[in-house]
């Protein structure tokens, strides 16, 4: 009897566990909203505005996916995650996708069992110092106290960089970007290091941004992109092609202003396939035919999203650089819609 109870329990629990992994898309549709993990607040990338509405470059990736599924960019529940909690939140199913300037690395992709669905920002790790420190290069930072967010790739890059250059430093581990800002401004650390984009974003929030400078060294490659769990490729495809739709739309000149007009039909068959007036790409994803049109109408194309959140006309003022379209000498490149 003892054994049979044990086996019976084993069988039942196996069935329960098996049933728990239905398709993510069905879960999201049943719930009526997308659960998306973002940062705890990096201006321009993901931060709540004065009314508590999340906005930013990464947030718009979440909104694009919600638009593709529901045609409604507001059908998103945002979950703020720290560098330490983000992967657990995604792996446990608390969030459906993570769009939190997360670096695509081998071990996260393979060992942590995540699927990176593209790159929405090509970044690199930089250093920010107060100007009156008189430092012009990262190699002069011997003995400096450096604020760093724990649980990030920047932590490992920093250790490697200082080791390779045979200089010492004192790491001050920090949980969130807001905490780093406070410590850095109080002078508890000489240097703040993280992705160059986030440095620019934080500097824009300082009272006197001109007193601080970002050193010229970029010590790592940080391709940042959205990611999902392994094992549900259909869901991964939706996130991947939502991002690609934004990129392709910019390349083809489809904007939030003209998408409605172009969806009636145009001379360019790729535009027609993208906007759903030709072919059945939406159906193949398990979505409506106008999924990509909804993304572009409600969120905008990649260039628009970049421009309104972090572009040169915003306080953050990041140039396109590596993040320009491939035709303009950048790395932003989407596989074709066909």
């Amino acid at each position, binding site marked *: 009897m*003892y054994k049979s*109870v*044990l086996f019976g*329990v*084993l069988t*039942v*629990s*196996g069935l*329960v*566990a*098996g049933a*728990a*992994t239905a398709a993510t898309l069905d879960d999201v549709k049943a719930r009526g909203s997308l659960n998306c993990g973002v940062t705890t607040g990096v201006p321009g990338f993901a931060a709540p505005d004065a009314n508590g509405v999340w906005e930013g470059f990464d947030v718009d990736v979440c909104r694009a996916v919600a638009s593709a599924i529901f045609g409604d960019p507001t059908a998103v529940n945002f979950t703020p995650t720290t*560098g*330490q909690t983000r*992967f*657990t939140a995604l*792996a446990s199913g608390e969030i459906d996708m993570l769009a939190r300037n997360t670096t695509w690395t081998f*071990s*996260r992709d393979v*060992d*942590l*069992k995540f699927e990176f669905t593209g790159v929405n920002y090509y970044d690199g790790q930089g250093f920010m110092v107060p100007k*009156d*420190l008189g430092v012009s290069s990262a190699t002069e*930072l*011997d*003995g*400096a*106290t450096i604020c760093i967010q*724990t*649980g990030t790739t920047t*932590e*490992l890059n*920093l*250790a*490697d960089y*200082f*080791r390779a250059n045979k200089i010492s*430093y*004192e*790491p*001050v*581990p*920090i*949980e969130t970007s807001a905490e780093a800002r406070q*410590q850095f401004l*109080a*002078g*508890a*650390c*000489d240097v703040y290091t993280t992705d160059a984009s986030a440095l620019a974003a934080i500097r824009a929030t300082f009272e006197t941004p001109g007193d601080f400078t970002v050193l010229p060294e970029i010590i790592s490659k940080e391709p940042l992109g959205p990611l999902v*769990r*392994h*094992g549900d490729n259909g869901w991964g495809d939706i996130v991947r092609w939502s991002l690609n739709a934004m990129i392709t739309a910019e390349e083809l000149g489809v904007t939030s202003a003209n998408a409605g007009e172009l969806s009636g039909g145009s001379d360019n068959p790729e535009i027609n396939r993208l906007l759903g007036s030709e072919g059945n790409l939406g159906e193949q994803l398990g979505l409506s035919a106008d999924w990509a049109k909804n993304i572009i109408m409600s969120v905008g194309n990649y260039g628009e999203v970049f421009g309104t959140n972090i572009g040169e006309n915003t306080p953050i003022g990041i140039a396109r650089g590596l993040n320009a379209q491939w035709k303009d000498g950048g790395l932003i490149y989407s596989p074709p819609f066909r």
Partner: protein
Amino acid sequence: MTTLTDPPAESFRLSQLIYDTRYRSMTIQVVALIGFVALFAWLISNTITNLALLGKDFNFGFLSVRSGYDINQRLVEYSSDSSHLRAAYVGLLNTLLVAVLGCALATVIGVFVGVLRLSNNWLTAKMMTIYVEAFRNIPVLLWIVAFFAVLTEATPAPRAFRGESPAASMVLNDSVAFTNRGIYVPSPTWGDGSLFVVVVFLLSLAGIWWFGRYAHKRQNETGDILPTFWIKLAIFFVPVVIAYFILGRPVGLEYPALKGFNFSGGLQFRNSLLALWLALSCYTGAFIAENVRAGILAISRGQSEAASALGLRPNRTMNLVVLPQALRVIIPPLISQYLNLTKNSSLAIAVGYMDLRATLGGITLNQTGRELECMLLMMGIYLIISLAISGSMNVYNNSVKLKER
């Protein structure tokens, strides 16, 4: 004549398991045990199934892999080339450091405040009441953050010490620097012959202990009270100072000096350690103060009245009569306060103190993605620390508790 016959041997029937009181309790226990084992088996099998579904295995091999990150406060040799296991060890030592320092200071604060709260001086008693209530009723995390904020915001950055007319300067004859990164104090340097000085110092400690016993014995036998304090003080200082100068001052001091971005040389007590240590000590100290007060109040008034009648002054009444008896009441709750302090030290990450939670349960967990293994390991380690503390405190408790003869 009546014959006695044995009652017919009753055969065992299954229904007796429920209706016969002789068997019922056993039945209930067996059923409960089966239920418990089944629940446990379900939990384990559910974990295994879900791990398999995620494509993850369960092994601790990651502990021997190169960690790749640096830790600021290291009590043992460690670099980013060391393994994750080594990083966890560094974190464990940092946890133990703050726990030991915290328990010691909390006890001092607790006894001091607990005694003063019973003082006849109205102002002193009320001030201690305010202290106890303020610390006991605000979450310790807020205290840790508050202490850290005060330490970083109220002190100057190292660069304020630089220049012709610096905004800040070192104190105590240019030997101690209070900065927003921590307190820098001189550290000893050990030259030739310093070992001899240390040996002399240890011998004089032994001498103090021996003298204390001798004075006690003498007092018991003859009633004479020796001026122990002054003699002990002399034993403490004189031999060491003589040895120090005879050997040509082998033990020196290395003063911290501003070099580059930071002070170098000397010892640095980081603000994260100080904030955590002070906050945990003050918080737990408030609880210990209440335990001490309860312990003292538990001693009947007759004891101190009798002591007064014998002519003991209030000071001695407290030290010789009340506190030794109160210890019996104080020690058991004190153990759980020590455990609380040790467990609360895992809040260290709030101020960036690299304890076990921040290394093994923080960065290592994150970089390797081994949540289950790291968490289980960490829980195991905290369990062992806590059991070790309560084990050793129980030994002490047995030595002070009332001996029944």
